């Protein structure tokens, strides 16, 4: 009964979404207040019905209702409850329902919190969100019904892919989706503004919290995905430039560019057309990501089971939304005349450079991701583009970006003195040179990791210099604390996020000098790696809740003293008839010791051992970056999103 309720709720949501797509938009065009007023109740109704559908799905998974095909395919009664629930969005159908639920949630948030949005703009934004919801609900109802029944019901489900039974991955899709869907809202704002024919500083102020919020979620989602790949896939890497990973990186890059250009719209009332274009692009990248993951057109290490019909449907949605948005853009953008002017050496100039470089990186990543697809269609050649391509093609763009970051943050609005900004950064530059020299000479790093370390130090010290400069730490130390407290949170957030990129960069540079070895050890035998002695003590059998495992006990010693005992496992999942390697990791925040158990040969264990300096910093950096974004989001300026009167002076 409950699954039928869910199915009905989905169909109802479809109808509500159609109404939401039409009524408010027509109302806004005719300036009919009653039609426009339907936007809020429709958005809330959509949330209610999609929420009911998702709740029914969760219920079906929680009680392991084997009459539902989706539960049979993705769940099993012996699974812990958390993985039963996470299984509901760990599969294609359920994850699409989650996608639409988050979209409905965002629509309701615009309806509920956007009280000081002009009525017409609000009606249009909610209407455009309705267009997106309609497309995706039709997609679910016609190609991916999560409530399909099977009769007779099997005794039990087939289980969830054991690689996905992991707390990190349980939370990974929802976080990523909040990011993707957040860009649906900025997209809706962009299209609404085009329909309205007006983009002003107030528009920038409304869009920025959404761009920032989506960016924070996406940052956390990518960080979690990368961390999961590191500890669960057991290859010791953190980023593989895999199409599915790139699918989340592309909207992140476009979103990062949007985040920065929206500041310029807000503060200087310029770069408006560009920001609208970026908002459209960010959502196009999110849809492209969904398409790449769902259709399986590209080979990926983490792809879901896929179906070409679904891919075609999402591709059609992508075409309709993006082509439609570009058509509206071409039609209306000439009306958005630029008003502000700016000098090249200024904060807005620096933000243009930022946008240029980030978009170039995104273009390179996009080309590398899609090229195999085009090559296959055009010439039939089976080609893959691997990490060497992405590393060589993005590094020359990323390095100037990182070098320019602290300088740009130092420049004031309107007209700046480059030399003065550089003078205030001299000690950050000195720190960077010192760290670079130390890693090169003292630690014996190769050139690239040493450069990475130097740039990381430059970013962290540059962020510190920015804050020190703003609170006058060197000029008037006695007042610094008071000034630090009154410094806007957005300034803190920006400095923290910029510094956090430095933290991640240090981790990436550290991974550049990581060492690993492959050994075959009998019990009692040991090997040396990176100054540690790794001793294989023995192999044993372990039984988990839904798996059996072989476990190796590896004692790691340094100068005769025990550092840690690592217990890597190979788990066999009975229900799924699958084996996974469970890496054992010991971290002390400065380095990771990482062990993976391979096969066994005549009582000996084949082990892959890694020493990864600074590895945890990669994900710490990602989390700090998201924290900086959230801090900035909590700034007073974001909460008081009142429209500024036109032509008002904006404090620089």
């Amino acid at each position, binding site marked *: 009964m409950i699954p039928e309720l869910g199915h009905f709720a989905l169909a109802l949501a479809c109808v509500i979404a159609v109404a939401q797509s039409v009524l408010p938009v027509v109302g806004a065009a005719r300036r009919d207040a009653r039609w426009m007023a339907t936007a809020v109740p429709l958005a809330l109704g959509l949330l209610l019905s999609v929420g009911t559908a998702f709740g029914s799905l969760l219920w079906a998974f929680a009680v392991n209702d084997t009459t539902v095909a989706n539960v049979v395919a993705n769940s099993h009664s012996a699974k812990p409850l958390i993985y039963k629930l996470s299984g509901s969005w760990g599969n294609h159908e359920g994850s699409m329902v989650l996608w639409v639920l988050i979209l409905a949630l965002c629509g309701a948030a615009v309806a509920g919190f956007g009280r000081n949005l002009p009525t017409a703009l609000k009606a249009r934004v909610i209407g455009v969100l309705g267009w997106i919801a309609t497309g995706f609900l039709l997609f679910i109802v016609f190609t991916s019904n999560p409530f399909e029944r099977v009769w007779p019901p099997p005794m039990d489900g087939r289980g969830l892919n054991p690689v996905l039974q992991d707390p990190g991955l349980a939370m990974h899709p929802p976080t990523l989706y909040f990011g993707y869907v957040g860009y649906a809202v900025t997209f809706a704002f962009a299209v609404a503004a085009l329909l309205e024919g007006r983009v002003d500083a107030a528009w920038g102020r409304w869009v920025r919290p959404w761009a920032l919020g989506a960016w924070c979620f996406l940052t956390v989602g990518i960080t979690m995905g990368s961390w999961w790949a590191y500890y669960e896939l057991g290859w010791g890497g953190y980023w593989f430039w895999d199409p599915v990973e790139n699918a989340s990186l592309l909207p992140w890059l476009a979103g990062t560019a949007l985040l920065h250009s929206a500041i310029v719209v807000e503060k200087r009332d310029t770069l408006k057309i560009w920001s609208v274009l970026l908002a459209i692009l960010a959502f196009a990248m999110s849809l492209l990501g969904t398409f790449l993951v769902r259709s399986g057109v590209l080979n990926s290490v983490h792809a879901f089971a896929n179906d070409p019909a679904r891919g075609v449907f999402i591709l059609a949605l992508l075409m309709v939304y993006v082509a439609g948005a570009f058509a509206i853009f071409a039609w209306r953008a000439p009306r958005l005349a630029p008003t502000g002017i700016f000098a090249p050496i200024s904060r807005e100039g620096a933000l243009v450079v930022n946008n240029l470089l980030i978009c*170039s990186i995104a273009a*390179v990543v996009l080309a590398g991701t899609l090229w195999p697809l085009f090559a296959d269609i055009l010439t039939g050649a089976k*080609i*893959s583009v691997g990490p060497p391509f992405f590393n060589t093609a993005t590094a020359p763009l990323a390095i100037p970006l990182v070098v320019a970051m602290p300088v740009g943050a130092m420049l004031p609005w309107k007209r700046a003195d480059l030399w003065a900004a550089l003078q205030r950064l001299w000690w950050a530059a000195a720190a960077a040179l010192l760290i670079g020299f130390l890693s090169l000479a003292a630690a014996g790093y190769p050139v690239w990791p040493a450069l990475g370390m130097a740039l990381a130090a430059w970013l962290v010290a540059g962020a510190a210099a920015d804050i020190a400069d703003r609170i006058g730490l060197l000029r008037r130390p006695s007042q610094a604390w008071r000034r630090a407290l009154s410094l806007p949170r957005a300034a803190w957030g920006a400095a923290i996020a910029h510094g956090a990129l430095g933290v991640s960069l240090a981790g990436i540079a550290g991974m550049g000098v990581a060492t690993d070895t*492959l050994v075959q050890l009998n019990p009692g035998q040991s090997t040396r790696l990176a100054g540690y002695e790794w001793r294989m003590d023995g192999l044993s059998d372990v039984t988990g809740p839904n798996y059996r495992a072989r476990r190796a006990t590896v004692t790691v010693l340094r100068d005769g003293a025990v550092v840690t005992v690592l217990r890597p496992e190979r788990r066999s999942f009975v229900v799924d008839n699958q084996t*996974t390697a469970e890496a054992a990791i010991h971290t002390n925040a400065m380095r990771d010791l990482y062990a993976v158990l*391979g*096969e066994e040969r005549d009582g000996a264990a*084949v082990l892959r051992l890694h020493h990864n300096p600074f590895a945890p910093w990669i994900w710490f950096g990602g989390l700090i970056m998201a924290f900086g974004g959230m801090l900035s989001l909590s700034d007073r300026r974001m909460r008081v999103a009142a429209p500024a009167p036109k032509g008002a002076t904006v404090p620089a």
Partner: protein
Amino acid sequence: MTRKKRRLMVLLLAGLGLGTATALTLTAFQDNLVFFLSPSDVIAQRPPAERAFRLGGLVEAGSVERVTASDGRPSATFRVTDGPNTITVTYTGVLPDLFREGQGVVTLGRLQPDGSFRASEVLARHDETYMPPEVADALRRAGHWNPAQGAAPPAASWNTAPRQPDGRSGG
């Protein structure tokens, strides 16, 4: 700065960015594109030893041998086949969890002077019933499966599919 001058400047900057990105992409493509070859392709084309490529096919049943390399590291050799032709692959590393005899596999590496293939990566997917599309395509080209006759048979049965008599198969 006049509006015209500013517009020119923005255009110039954008052109510079786009140009750099294109140049970087093209140069990186030149060196880093990795082609997929089936054993028959390798026999026909003889790719140069310095060029990395991906070799895919079925792991021949009974061909997997676990050996110890000259430097004492554990490694494995196996034969990858597409029916008519077979290539011997050496791999030093932990074989993926889903590596099974008789199933599809994709390996990344370089051809050795003796005609064997030294793999630096062996890819197998999380899903045991999954057949890499390139492998399915290679098998179709080798005459094992005709798409006109319907969907591909399950991956596990590929190895026992009828072979051409001159196939150097061991299983």
